[in-house]
């Protein structure tokens, strides 16, 4: 039993590492490990980051819902509330602009050799996460619970088949990308 458990966890860790290497390789090739590229996105002068994210979302959305329809995977939905996602999202956004990296891309920035990410940003993210963990008992039943809507998805919200949301969402995202390209952004 012990051996089997250890083997499972080694293969879990190994696949995590392998998928991470692919993810980091792609982020670096896309330029997303760079402060200049991320800030240019937030200044709305270069849409590289949004193009990467939206094409990942379109590709992922179609595949994940197909795998789900075949019963091969289960979704993993984060429960949400207005107090959690709106307030937390805005705080995150401010940090995103001040730092110029996000938690995934800063790991890539470390691999790229960027010392402001290693010495400054990485340390800051660890401190900020610890601060939240210390305050969590006070926030938990207060603002984080305000406007709770649980593990909700849009197909559940509209009470329709998944594909009735997937197909229009893909269409809107593709049109947005075509429009961005037509504007030369």
């Amino acid at each position: 039993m012990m051996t089997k458990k250890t083997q499972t966890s080694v293969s879990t860790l190994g696949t995590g590492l392998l998928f991470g290497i692919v993810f980091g390789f792609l982020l670096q090739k896309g330029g997303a490990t760079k402060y200049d590229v991320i800030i240019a996105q937030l200044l709305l002068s270069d849409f590289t980051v949004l193009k990467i994210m939206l094409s990942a979302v379109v590709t992922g959305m179609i595949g994940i819902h197909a795998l789900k329809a075949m019963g091969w995977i289960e979704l993993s939905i984060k429960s949400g509330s207005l107090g959690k996602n709106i307030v937390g999202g805005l705080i995150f956004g401010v940090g995103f602009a001040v730092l110029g990296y996000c938690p995934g891309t800063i790991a890539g920035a470390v691999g790229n050799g960027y010392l402001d990410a290693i010495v400054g940003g990485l340390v800051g993210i660890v401190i900020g996460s610890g601060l939240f963990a210390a305050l969590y008992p006070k926030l938990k039943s207060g603002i984080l619970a305000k406007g709770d809507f649980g593990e909700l998805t849009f197909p559940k919200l509209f009470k329709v088949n998944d594909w009735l949301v997937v197909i229009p969402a893909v269409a809107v995202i593709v049109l947005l990308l075509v429009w961005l390209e037509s504007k030369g952004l």
Partner: protein
Amino acid sequence: MDYFTEVRWSPYVVGIGIGVLSWFTFYFSKKPIACSTTFARASGIAERLLRGPQVEQRPYYQKIKLSWGWQGMLVTGIVLGALFSALLSGDFRWQWVPDLWATTFGSSPLLRILVALLGGIILGFGARWSDGCTSGHGISGTLQLAVSSWVSVVCFFVGGVLAAQIIFRVIA
């Protein structure tokens, strides 16, 4: 093979690649791509080294569990994958101050490091508050059509665009 030594790929090739990668993580690891909880675990693990095992009793660490795990290895892999890509294309370099920051605020490493530290604190705090980051909510959550993730990612960009305007168009 020349393609792998190029400095930049089309954002669409990169994005489609990440989307396909998400099929693999769901299928083989039963997990979505996500990064930010790892930094909270790192914080708890560091505090545990300093203050001992009672740190694990904090309600937040009871919730997320202080083990490096699959996601910690994913984040470790990102460092290695980015390093590998940058070395292959000759794009790796040790750099204290990003170019855009240097042309706007000067090339002092100290100022940039202090601001990056502050930004990191705000980012880490906000990622825990919203329960996800640009990968967990921004890519994995939105592709699953999660309401929490769409609300979060819109707020990430609203907050980010407004703060960037203030930093580069008002303060600078």
